[in-house]
């Protein structure tokens, strides 16, 4: 029964092959581009060759006349704007009157073959009137005209944030040391191996089906209903298994809306598969971020106050950018106690592909800054950086200055693991010149506390059907992007009902069949769908148990479920097969089905902007990187990384290992080589939209990884589980930067840490200049009047000074 105490787990914590493993290794998994429907047409998008221009005329007559072309769409066919955040409804499926980056979709063609559709694109005549383009955030901050959008907080500054939690200046006055640093984190992209694809089918009866490689079918559903002006009940969105997402398939996209509209116009199924170059234009990747941080510390390293500023280069559209901006200031407070904290964040529109959420969403940049900054502080104080961190860990069950409620906190154990494993004490500052070791830590949310659009409904829902044959089907809107979310559902339900996970059928990511789950982003899926699945499975157990008890003639509270049986816990041999128990329940009660749902706990903060940062649980990671730096060339090699991650509770051990290793890999790529680079002029053309030129680690660059999984079960997680898919990426870039300093004594305050930057810093060191490569100034920004929120220890209730009771809560998840 629900109250039965679990002493041990049978499924949870084991290393099981994933429920979809066999179809993945046989090639049977159907990704979006694998779909083929009778009479299917193919769509292609015409994209802007200009970074910023007004469209003065479009003539598609010749394209329409081409044999094999069935339809051509332009902006006026889809005039309703959309966007992932309610505050940034600034995209059109096809540009209406303006283009904002090279690659912005302008027109679409449906034809009988991809070749004809491509040929037709050349026949569409678009007249542009080029406008001054903005290649980077500083340029956009300094020049309000011409405005990229007709909405913004100031000129070309999309969003301005100024939050103050206590008097930081007083904090600096109490400090023994006050240090300021500037950092830059270059933009980079997700680079999923699967190119985005979508297919649509329109039945003349008025129902639309869209298949897509999307991480967020629910948001695509909402965007389609809005733009196509169709009732949501007539639209079915099916999220195909994603061939990698990493955040890059979390927005509703132009191509998804375009295929739907083309299917409606032609009455035929349509498919579109983006080229790799187009995937670079979809982007929504890591925001290039300039950061300034000033921290006061006591002699023992205790922080007295911190002031953090960030400037994000947002690209041409809003996307998740408002949330990303808040995230660059949100999680500084959850690792080391910060009694007074001020955050100022700005996001500029520029004429580049839009930035958005990439693995770690808005937090790897400030984490890089903070962890290198702390390394410098430790050096100035003459402290070991591991020791400094261990002495100043945020205690569990804390409420931070910015009102984030932290539950379990396993960072101390993580630091100890990597310090011991890497022989840190023997190696730090003691390796030969050219070799170095560096440490960094981090934390990440396990799901956003608030939904993207304001609503009071659950974030995740599960329906569960028990078949009289003993099988169980779990229906959930979650989306399998390779992280193993389908398997988590199977394992959790199997645990509660005492079944083999392979006896559980999983139906996910289909808006007709599955209850809403908000999507595979913000590391929310295991915690939220897991809790919903536990509730549904426990309800099924409670529904079935009394009937088994009656048959077995024992009290219902003695009924247990395990090994495919339902039995008396006092005499385990006295029992029934699970199927038989379901049959008894079905005979008595009718069809056996239950539901479960999950809503995160209410956030503590009540100020505007408090919606970003709260989470049911925070994961923690610590990382040590070993590097070899060639002083002659500046080339950095990373032979080995030690990573420890506090995952709360392991559900599937093999998946946890895979997520941690994959995060380290992606963090290593960001640390050393990955960058969205543009030509250095106002053409703002992407330099390298190809898999060859966008450098990502191959087997030859990937390091050895020693992984420690730390379990500190969190009461808010399913069986105590927290996230592991994003957090372990965060400490890797700063650990590498700190190790480079240990190796050759130069600070690279910018990622990626390319040979050129290391070489230039070494040259400066040789000349007796500051041994550093990194930004040298933060621009003047017209910050608004700060929102002043007293931290918890200064009283108050999480509202801002002067804020009306029950005032606005930012709702950007």
């Amino acid at each position, binding site marked *: 029964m629900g109250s039965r105490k679990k002493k041990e787990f049978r499924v949870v914590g084991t290393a099981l092959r994933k429920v979809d493993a066999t179809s993945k290794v046989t090639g049977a998994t159907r*990704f979006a581009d694998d779909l*083929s429907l009778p009479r299917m047409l193919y769509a292609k998008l015409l994209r802007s060759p200009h970074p910023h221009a007004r469209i003065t005329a479009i003539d598609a007559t010749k394209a329409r006349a081409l044999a094999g072309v069935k339809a051509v769409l332009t902006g006026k066919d889809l005039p309703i704007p959309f966007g992932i955040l309610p505050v940034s409804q600034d995209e059109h499926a096809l540009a209406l009157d303006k283009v904002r980056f090279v690659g912005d979709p302008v027109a679409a063609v449906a034809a009988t073959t991809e070749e004809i559709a491509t040929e037709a694109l050349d026949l569409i005549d678009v007249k542009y009137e080029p406008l001054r383009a903005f290649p980077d955030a500083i340029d956009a901050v300094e020049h309000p005209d011409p405005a990229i959008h007709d909405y913004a907080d100031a000129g070309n500054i999309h969003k301005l944030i100024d939050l103050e939690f206590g008097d930081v200046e007083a904090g600096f006055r109490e400090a023994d040391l006050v240090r300021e640093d500037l950092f830059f984190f270059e933009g980079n992209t997700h680079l999923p191996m699967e190119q985005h694809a979508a297919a649509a089918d329109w039945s003349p009866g008025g129902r639309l089906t869209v298949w897509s490689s999307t991480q967020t079918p629910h948001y695509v559903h909402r965007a389609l209903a809005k733009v196509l002006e169709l009732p949501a009940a007539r639209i079915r969105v099916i999220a195909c298994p994603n*061939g990698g997402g990493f955040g890059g398939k979390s927005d509703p996209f132009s191509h998804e809306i375009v295929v739907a509209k083309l299917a409606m116009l032609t009455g035929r199924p349509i498919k579109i598969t983006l080229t790799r170059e187009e995937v670079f234009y979809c982007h929504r990747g890591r925001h290039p971020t300039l950061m300034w941080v000033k921290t006061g510390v006591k002699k023992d390293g205790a922080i007295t106050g911190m002031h953090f500023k960030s400037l994000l280069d947002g690209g041409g559209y809003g996307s998740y950018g408002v949330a990303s901006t808040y995230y660059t200031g949100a999680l500084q407070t959850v690792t080391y106690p910060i009694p007074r904290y001020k955050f100022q964040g700005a996001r500029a529109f520029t004429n580049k592909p839009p930035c958005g959420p990439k693995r770690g969403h808005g937090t790897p940049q400030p984490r890089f800054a903070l962890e290198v900054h702390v390394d410098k502080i430790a050096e100035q104080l003459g402290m070991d950086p591991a020791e400094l961190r261990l002495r100043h860990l945020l205690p569990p069950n804390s409420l931070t200055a910015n009102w984030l409620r932290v539950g379990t906190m396993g960072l101390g154990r993580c630091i100890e693991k990597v310090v011991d494993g890497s022989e840190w004490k023997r190696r730090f500052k003691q390796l030969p010149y050219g070799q170095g070791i560096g440490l960094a830590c981090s934390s990440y949310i396990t799901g956003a506390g608030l939904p993207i659009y304001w609503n009071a409904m659950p974030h995740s829902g599960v329906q569960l059907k028990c078949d009289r044959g003993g099988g169980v089907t779990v229906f959930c809107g979650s989306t399998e992007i390779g992280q193993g979310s389908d398997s988590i559902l199977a394992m959790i339900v199997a645990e509660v009902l005492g079944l083999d996970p392979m006896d559980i059928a999983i139906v996910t990511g289909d808006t007709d069949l599955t209850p809403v789950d908000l999507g595979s982003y913000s590391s929310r899926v295991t915690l939220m769908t897991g809790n919903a699945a536990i509730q549904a499975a426990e309800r099924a157990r409670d529904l079935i148990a009394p009937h088994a008890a009656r048959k077995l003639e024992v009290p219902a509270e003695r009924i247990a479920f395990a090994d495919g049986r339902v039995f008396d816990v006092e005499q385990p041999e006295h029992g029934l097969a699970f199927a038989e128990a379901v049959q008894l329940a079905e005979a008595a009660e009718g069809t056996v089905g239950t539901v479960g749902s999950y809503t995160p706990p209410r956030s503590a903060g009540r100020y505007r902007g408090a919606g970003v940062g709260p989470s049911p649980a925070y994961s923690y990671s610590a990382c040590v990187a070993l590097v070899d730096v060639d002083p002659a060339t500046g080339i950095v090699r990373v032979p080995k990384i030690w990573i420890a991650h506090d995952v709360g509770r392991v559900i599937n051990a093999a998946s946890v290992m895979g997520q941690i290793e994959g*995060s380290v890999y992606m963090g290593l790529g960001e640390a050393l080589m990955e960058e969205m680079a543009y030509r250095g002029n106002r053409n703002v053309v992407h330099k390298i939209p190809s898999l060859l030129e966008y450098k990502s680690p191959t*087997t030859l660059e*990937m390091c050895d990884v020693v992984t420690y999984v730390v379990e500190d079960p969190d009461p808010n997680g399913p069986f105590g589980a927290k996230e592991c898919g994003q957090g372990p990426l965060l400490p890797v870039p700063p650990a590498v930067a700190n190790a480079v300093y240990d190796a050759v004594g130069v600070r690279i305050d910018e990622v990626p840490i390319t040979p050129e930057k290391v070489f230039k810093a070494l040259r400066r060191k040789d000349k007796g200049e500051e041994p550093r490569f990194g930004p040298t100034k933060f621009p003047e920004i017209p910050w608004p009047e700060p929102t002043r929120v007293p931290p918890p220890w200064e009283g108050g209730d999480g509202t801002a000074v002067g804020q009306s009771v029950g005032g606005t809560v930012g709702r950007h998840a």
Partner: protein
Amino acid sequence: MPDAKAKIALDVNGEPIEVAFAPHKTLLEVLREDLGLTGTKHGCELGECGTCTVLVDGTPVLSCLVLGLACAGRRVKTVEGMADGGVLHPLQEAFAELGAAQCGYCTPAFLLTADALLAENPRPAREQIKDALAGNLCRCTGYIKIYEAVELAAARMRGEKAEPARETLYGQP
């Protein structure tokens, strides 16, 4: 006008077949579009990512860079041809067991590249595995589970009773 179709005979996964297609089509397109073998994936269609790798006469090739016409009379092996009836190939088994397939999109190419490696070298060292797989990109795994799966499968294919190491599945104590 589209080109007239060309027709070739070849061996695909051990079966002789004839297929007609527009002569400009790549092997990748012929496999996916004309033979319905969608297990072969694509990540760039420019020969940069290795995702479309198949074996032609036992050698890994990028099917996006090979014309279908060039495969007349050749033996082509795709992921659909790896399992023996209902029994998975030891590489498939090991990839599934260790979670070496996360999203699964690059997986067919890694399996086939590893298959060719093991045919040539039944006992590859870790560095040899890295070299053999250096042309295949994977964004999910960090490659580590892939190396471990290749090693596990290689041991089993040599007749050894190999099981995954504890730290492979659970991490260091």
